[in-house]
């Protein structure tokens, strides 16, 4: 439960505020101070970023296979970096590496291994299977895109199915077109539901007894040096957080009723309940592996006025 992201922050504090040289016996003979090292790396990455960012954009997405045969859709779907599966993923641009799962350098090995295996199983084999079997009309859709499409394979024009006050008009929807998504987008939505169900079961099975014990005890009973050192600072009482919570729930109700959002009160309560139930499991996964699971798909389908439970 180390919250790997915090290690990065702490290491940076250490580097910025402590300008002394490092002890060569601990660092294989290097005696440069962390501050100076950080400065060199910052200047170096600043200079380097001009190349993939501006001068030579091909360095960002180095999908060289697509250069061999640029006009072949299958090669683009398999090896392309932007709208394809990117089977040979080479990039020289750090902003692409750390874009979606925030810096691979901080996560522990088992988390990265897990992500890798998941990606191979789902985003290579399953996505290829779905796409080339044409199950969801995939022969007309891109492999990996974030747009939604209509039945003429152009981008979905949402304004055509909305009423004047931005709710769904069912007749117009049936006259226009159902929504089509690219292959990996569909897969992502399905897997998102699976992931948040899995995280509850995982937490209940692996951490259930520990959480139960911790809920019963008034004070945590692991006495490491840090907990003891922090005991001298008075702790913020829980009722303070609870008061803040209830005041702000009041604000939430004010927000949804003062403006034409069409969100019903019970949908808001369901949304709050969902986040309360999932905060501990998702927090534990984030604390160990630096993977931020998102509830956005689940709540978007269940609570929003266009979602499932309003129909």
């Amino acid at each position, binding site marked *: *439960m*180390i*919250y790997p*992201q*915090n*290690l*990065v*922050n*702490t290491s*940076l*504090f*250490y580097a*910025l*505020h*402590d300008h*002394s040289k490092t002890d060569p016996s601990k660092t294989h003979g290097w005696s440069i101070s962390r501050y100076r090292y950080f400065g060199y790396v910052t200047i170096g990455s600043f200079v380097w970023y001009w190349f993939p960012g501006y001068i030579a954009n091909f360095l960002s997405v180095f999908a060289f296979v697509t250069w061999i045969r640029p006009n072949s859709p299958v090669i683009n779907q398999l090896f392309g970096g*932007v709208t394809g599966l990117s089977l040979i993923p080479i990039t020289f641009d750090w*902003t*692409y590496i750390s*874009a*979606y799962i*925030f810096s691979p350098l901080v996560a522990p090995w088992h988390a990265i291994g897990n992500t890798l295996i998941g990606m191979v199983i789902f985003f290579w084999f399953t996505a290829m299977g779905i796409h080339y079997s044409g199950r969801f009309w995939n022969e007309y859709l891109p492999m990996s895109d974030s747009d939604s499409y209509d039945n003429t394979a152009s981008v979905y024009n*949402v*304004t055509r199915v909305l009423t004047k006050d*931005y709710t769904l008009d069912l007749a117009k929807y049936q006259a226009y077109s159902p929504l089509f998504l690219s292959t990996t987008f569909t897969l992502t939505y399905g897997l998102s539901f699976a992931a948040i169900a899995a995280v509850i079961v995982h937490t209940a099975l692996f951490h259930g007894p520990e*959480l139960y014990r*911790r*809920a019963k005890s008034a004070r*945590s009973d*692991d006495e490491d040096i*840090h*907990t003891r*050192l*922090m005991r001298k*600072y008075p702790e913020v009482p*829980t009722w303070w*957080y*609870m008061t*803040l*919570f*209830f005041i*702000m*729930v009041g*604000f*939430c109700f*004010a*927000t949804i009723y*003062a*403006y*034409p*959002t069409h969100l019903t009160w019970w949908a808001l309560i369901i949304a709050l309940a969902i*986040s*309360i139930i999932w*905060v*501990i499991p998702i*927090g*534990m996964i984030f*604390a160990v592996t630096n993977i*931020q699971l998102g509830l*956005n798909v689940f709540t978007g389908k269940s609570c929003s006025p266009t979602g499932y439970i309003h129909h």
Partner: protein
Amino acid sequence: MRSPQLIITSLVAQLVAYPLGYAWEKILPNRQMRIGRLKFNLNPGPFNIKEHTIIVVMANCTFGGGAAYATDTLLAQRAFYGQNLGWGFDILLCLSTQIVGYGIAGAARKFLVWPGMSDDEMVLDVLTNSKQRP
């Protein structure tokens, strides 16, 4: 919109706060000031790691790991649906969702924070180590 998105995390706040903190310490005067009945000192001492940590913790509450998630809602409203409900709605939405999250996190401290090393403990680790230096 750019792909991949540019993510401004609390790490950016940490880096930017460092020169700003030092500039504050160098530029602002170090004496007691008064406005009416309020007495304060604009520049009580050198910019130290504790102040820096508080800045980063506050930044993390607000936009740690990207933007506040409510801004994604506002973005979808404007870009996808063409619906703009005004700045009052934006402020109320972001404020209420963020602070509700803060309240929930405060209630979950017992399960998520104490078992392992928390942010404060890591900082304390750094502080205790820095004290050993001459």
